């Protein structure tokens, strides 16, 4: 994949911006300026200002870490939960594996946003809870993928060869299955990061994520929709940032998969 390094560069830039962004901009992301409400993008305010006169660029920068946290955090939750469970169900064809699978199917049958709502609605919202909720929603997907890949690999002759040596299940997993199962899982991780950011934003949009005045991108988009006709830049800036972030994460995920393949290049 030729776009791997540009993707890495862009992602590093976004991460860097998320970490030091607030010190870079001269404006307080929460600072009101009534006279500057709905200012169109200018040299001083490259992304314009919002309904309270807050600088949109400053807000986008200060909210970046929230989107990144939700995206990567939820991906990690689904990875840590889904991969071991997927491997377990691939190996265990008895009642234990079946039980796990049925529960996963049950979760899969619910729309993700509903499931997120279910988890978040009963308790006061917070960023950490959003991460866990979104991660839980994606565990069944990770589980299904890992199981499918592992079951296919279990039929391969090199796994049969390991069995013919009397290798333990743990050794077969670690040596034969996991190294070959990683590439599709990594691609899926990239996708999950992007979906998690979107779902996190959607949940925030519904008021179930980080609360205003936090400048999480989903919250910003939610707040901006009332002013879409008079000040489209308020929603456009976080929307575009979200777009760029999703594309870079995908580029990096796809590039990693290709790089991990020994027959590559």
């Amino acid at each position, binding site marked *: 994949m030729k776009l791997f390094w540009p993707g890495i560069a862009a992602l590093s830039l976004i991460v860097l911006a998320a970490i030091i962004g607030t010190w870079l901009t001269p404006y307080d992301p929460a600072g009101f300026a009534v006279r500057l409400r709905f200012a169109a993008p200018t040299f001083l305010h490259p992304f314009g200002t919002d309904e309270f006169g807050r600088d949109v660029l400053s807000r986008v920068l200060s909210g970046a870490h929230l989107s990144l946290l939700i995206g990567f955090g939820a991906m990690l939750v689904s990875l840590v939960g889904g991969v071991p469970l997927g491997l377990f169900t691939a190996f265990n064809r008895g009642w234990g594996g079946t039980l796990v699978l049925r529960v996963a199917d049950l979760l899969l049958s619910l729309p993700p946003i509903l499931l997120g709502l279910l988890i978040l609605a009963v308790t006061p919202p917070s960023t950490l809870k959003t991460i866990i909720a979104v991660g839980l929603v994606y565990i069944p997907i990770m589980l299904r993928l890992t199981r499918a890949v592992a079951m296919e690999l279990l039929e*391969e*002759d*090199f796994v*049969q*060869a*390991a*069995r*013919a*040596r*009397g*290798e333990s299940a743990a*050794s077969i997993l670690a*040596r*034969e299955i996991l*190294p*070959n199962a990683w590439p599709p899982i990594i691609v899926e991780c990239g996708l999950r990061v992007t979906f998690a950011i979107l779902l996190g934003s959607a949940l925030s949009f519904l008021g179930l994520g980080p609360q205003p005045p936090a400048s999480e991108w989903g919250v910003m988009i939610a707040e901006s929709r009332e002013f879409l006709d008079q000040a489209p830049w308020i929603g456009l800036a976080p929307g575009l940032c979200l777009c760029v972030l999703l594309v870079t994460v995908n580029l990096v995920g796809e590039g990693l998969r290709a790089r991990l393949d*020994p*027959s590559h*290049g």
Partner: protein
Amino acid sequence: MPGWTHRMAEPLLAIERLSVAFPTRRGLVQALQSVDLSVPAGGALALVGESGSGKSTVVLALLGLLGRARVDAARMSFDGIDLRTRAAEVRGRRLAVVFQDPSSSLNPALAIGRQVAEPLVIHGKLPAATARVQATELLAEVGLPRPSALMDCYPHQLSGGMKQRVAIAMALAAHPDLLLLDEPTTALDVTVEAGILDLLADLRARRGLSLLLVSHNLGIVDRLCDRAAVLYAGRVVEDGPVPGVLGRSRHPYTRGLLAALPRPDETGLLSPIPGNLPDLTAPVAGCNFQPRCAFAAAGCEAPQMLTGADHLVRCHRAVALEGASWPAPAPLPPPPVRDGALLVAEGLSRRFGAVQAVDAVSLTIAPGEVLGLVGESGCGKSTLGRLLLRLIASHAGSLAFGGEAIPNDPTRSFRRRAQIVFQNPDTALNPRQTVGTILRRPLEHFGIARGAAARTEIARLLELVRLPASYASRYPHQLSGGEKQRVGIARALASRPEFIVCDEAVSALDVSVQAAVLNLLAELRQSLGLALLFVSHDISVIAHVADRVAVMYGGALMEVGPAAIVLHPPFHPYTQALLSAVPVIGRRARDRLRLPGEPGAVHPGEGCRFALRCHRQLGQVCLEQAPPWRDLGDGHQIRCHISIEALQELSQGS
């Protein structure tokens, strides 16, 4: 340019100086270099070569289906139509194709009738009802039973041979003049292959069809074609009438191929062609076979021309080498079979759902002995191999190894002493481990060697299978098929086993490579005193490796005995059919026996499993009573109702 194209009337298909190159990451791969071919109307040309020779590329180039490849030809015409620009007009109509794998060339979601009628509706512009009637007639023409009932079947309900007949019917639907056959029988059992070859020969005669057969199998070329062109790494190296090319080969490569070909009536070592295909990204101007050629000499570096009158050859030494044969390897000393039994199986059985895959099989293997296990696909031979290794659990019966009973969950010591080599070199090795890692694992697992000692041992193992020690750092994808198979063998040898199951271990390899791997196995069992269970569908391969042969049908053994006896009369009728179905160069087609029914069609109930397909069935007794084992002495046993005398008598005639 072949002279014979000019002597005849305008050929149906004429290809002149066809070159094809594929752009890849490694550079431009020259798949075909200036290939000249022609098929006269009513003629049958075979395009012979191993994988990578470019033979399938010729077919795709003719059909205009090469996509982004660079195709360059001075001429590519079919009955006056320029295929370079107008291939789409004739393909699927006057130029029809039958591909290798019938299970992937038929659409699994459509009924057979619809698939056969489709070309009639699209190309023939027939109304649906008429097309359906004609489709039924076509199914009957290709020899399918009960065609009207078949029309509503789906591909998964048909056997491989039936599917291939449907594919042929589809190709015939548009009344083609030329049938392109791309390895049409490679995916089929020999007994089924024989029937398909009959059908093709018959269609050729009846419909006046011309054939272009692409195959690696020289036996079927002999059966079906009147001319053959031998392709090596993108170049035609020999082109002439089939009896000449196969009987008095003029190019060293053709001779090498023929020497490497196992025959059911021969034993001993085969003559492999050393080395691998040349790098097609950097084609040499001179002979590209020279690095592997046994007859290479000064002058081979110069560009070679196809010369000759009717039998053309691309070799400057062709005249000097007239009559020379490919050098044979030195014969091995007699096999080190010791007395006693290493492995004893008693009544081993295994079911999969309702299918009795292996039914009460008993056999013994002596230390150092090679037992060949032969049968058609689905007969349970691979399952039996895995039962003997306890890779799958048996439902009944017992297994003893080295005098000890081996339970379904065996000890580590049994795992060390009994190993396996797989069929497909591409899936047998973990793609993410280097050869060194692959070989180190069994050494560490069984506590044979670690660290520096393991490195020495890996080098020794690689040397055993004739690979350079530097291969330890390579990944499987950097190896050729034959090299991968050698690594698979080295992995099995790593634990210093006494017994190895070779499950179709050479079936996925090209003939020249197959010969080398077979010889390697023969040498290894000689030097290491290994016992092998050699599982194969190819009775010719079995003839070359086995000391004793077991013939399996429908989950049970039919005949067991020393190879030299089993492969000669008297036979079990099934063994006779298997041997007879093998397309051997020079054997007359009509001498071959035809089995009715499908491979693995097992007669249910108490009677003989083979009764429904048996050409010598005696009637009620075969259908109702289990056949007895008849002992013919020397450890030769046949499970058949026919008396020994009758078996002996009737076998004389075959």
